[in-house]
């Protein structure tokens, strides 16, 4: 069942960052363009893309941290309109975010208990101290921070990165959301402890029926933890499909490049040594398919017109003018 869906989401940042003010408006940053994405209950979807391509922006749009420039959000099929008030708060309650950096997502001044108790109180899940206590304990247990008593009164700096990320997850769970968006939840963690956190998220999706969006730049981990993967490039969606199919037979040249570039000691053939240039600027993105300047197989049409979505069956689709050709490189 689709719990949360974003349709044709677009986000242009017009307000200038930093000290630059109103005199002479700056051109907008076209961070996200025409992105549609759906999250299903009990399943993990991954959003993959290189740094700066707009993944976090999509996450924030979905969580309504800021409103989209255009596009719609649907929660359980119902369009979301409210931008303030109770309905809006209710929406936010249902969709929770987990941030990349566990070191900055917990307030260093508050104890674990406070972090978990506040959402319980705000949303009226806990009405007494006693109730609050048991619920906090439950939450900690759910994220495997045991013994519960010991963790409840710790300050964030007394926890390791992995433990903090678990607290952050517990806090998101405290509001009892239906969808959880994890924005690079493990990229700041050491390799050896990433696994635990990812497993926890996977379990939550499976067991509690949460809809989970796993955002990452590491396509290998997406292959392992998500049922389907959506690839993003320079603010636009590129390709999507079940994770195994997508990683093993990519259809879009960019996905292919991404897979080729990812370090992999098991690789049989060494990747070719052509230079691929830099990712484009989002202020003046390339016209047409945004990937065309780096694409080895670009056609003239690629630079003039953005390709529409081509359904490939089995839940796969791509935005590429050559989507019909199974493997343009091999040809």
């Amino acid at each position: 069942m689709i719990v949360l869906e974003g349709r044709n989401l677009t986000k242009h940042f017009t307000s200038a960052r930093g000290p630059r003010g109103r005199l002479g408006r700056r051109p907008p940053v076209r961070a996200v363009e025409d992105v549609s994405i759906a999250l299903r209950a009990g399943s993990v979807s991954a959003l993959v893309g290189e740094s700066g391509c707009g993944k976090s922006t999509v996450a924030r749009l979905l969580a309504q941290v800021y409103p989209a420039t255009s596009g719609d959000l649907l929660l359980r099929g119902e369009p979301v309109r409210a931008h303030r008030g109770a309905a809006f708060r209710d929406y936010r309650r249902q969709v929770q975010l987990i941030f990349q950096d566990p070191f900055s997502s917990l307030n260093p001044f508050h104890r674990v208990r406070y972090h978990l108790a506040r959402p319980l109180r705000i949303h009226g899940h806990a009405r007494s101290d006693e109730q609050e206590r048991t619920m906090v304990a439950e939450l900690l247990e759910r994220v495997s921070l045991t013994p519960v008593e010991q963790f409840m009164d710790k300050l964030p700096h007394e926890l390791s990165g992995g433990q903090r990320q678990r607290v952050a997850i517990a806090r998101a769970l405290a509001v009892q959301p239906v969808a959880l968006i994890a924005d690079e939840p493990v990229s700041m963690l050491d390799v050896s402890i990433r696994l635990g956190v990812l497993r926890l998220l996977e379990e939550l999706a499976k067991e509690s029926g949460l809809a989970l969006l796993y955002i990452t730049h590491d396509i290998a981990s997406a292959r392992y933890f998500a049922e389907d993967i959506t690839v993003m490039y320079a603010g636009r969606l590129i390709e999507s499909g079940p994770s195994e199919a997508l990683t093993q037979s990519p259809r879009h040249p960019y996905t292919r490049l991404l897979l080729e570039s990812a370090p992999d000691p098991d690789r049989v053939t060494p990747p070719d040594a052509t230079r691929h240039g830099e990712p484009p600027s989002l202020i003046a993105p390339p016209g047409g398919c945004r990937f065309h300047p780096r694409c080895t197989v670009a056609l003239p049409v690629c630079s003039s017109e953005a390709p529409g979505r081509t359904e490939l069956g089995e839940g796969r689709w791509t935005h590429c003018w050559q989507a019909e050709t199974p493997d343009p490189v091999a040809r």
Partner: protein
Amino acid sequence: MNVLEIRDLGVDYLSQTGAVHAVADVSLDLRRGEILGLAGESGSGKSTLANAVARLLRPPAAITSGSVVYHRQDGTAVDVLALKRDELRAFRWKELAVVFQSAMNSLNPVSTVGAQIDDVLRIHAPKMSRKDRAERAVELLQRVGISADRRRSYPHELSGGMRQRAAIAIALALNPEVIIMDEPTTALDVVVQRDILHEIRALREEYGFAVVFITHDLSLLMEISDRIAIMYAGRVVETGTAEALHRTPRHPYTLGLLRSFPRLHGPREELLGIPGTPPDLRSLPPGCAFHPRCGRAMEECSTRLPLLTRGADGADGADGSDGEVACLLNGGRGVEEAS
């Protein structure tokens, strides 16, 4: 054939609350022209080791023991840690150059890329004319794939990948024998990272320098390095060729690391990871620092400190590698199963 020999090197960070043994008894050899990968979790002492070799440590860091010997091509040996101020200046960059993790921060934001190359040439090659220096700067930039007109750009005008290339160009300025690269690609995305790795390999072929390549991404190291050293809690726990380490890791920690990386190809193997968290360097567990997290720990592991020893059965030596491991399992040979 070693260009750099590190012996029993120890580095402490002194502080009021006690010394942090960031690097302890590390011995490593760097061979001429090879890429030596240095891997390990965050805080395991990789950067500290690199900085100690380049003599870049500042108080409160202090080298407490050991030696670093550099062998020139002509055979003379230099005790790096004993170099005087002027000798050290000449040693740095002529013999040994460094590329830092974040190129944005390692380039002077207020001067142009060209000027920063020029700076090095002016000090170390005082005979070069201004014109020659300018030409050399252009040549270097082009060599790493930056167009000549970028010479007058300030770092903030370059993209991340270009900055990293510029940093490499600066490192190449004097044809050093050794380049230390401390996480040169961590801040970049995979496609750009891939391009830069290619660049490094190609340049190495061309100039023949040796590289110490530091990263915590083991799979990356396995692709680029000739040999790899794994660090844990300030100590080298295993060395070996990339091949050997990939196929038959001998230290349980290496094995754990390898099993933490999801793979892109082949069957989806189960990821095991490593339980627990990295230790606090201020109060290391006694014996093998890894034993609290080690699934195979024996009683002995918590009391005896394993030393780095050559793989006992010499099996690894068969393909020319001479891997070492610091593990008490199997009589000091470490784990005996394929990854």
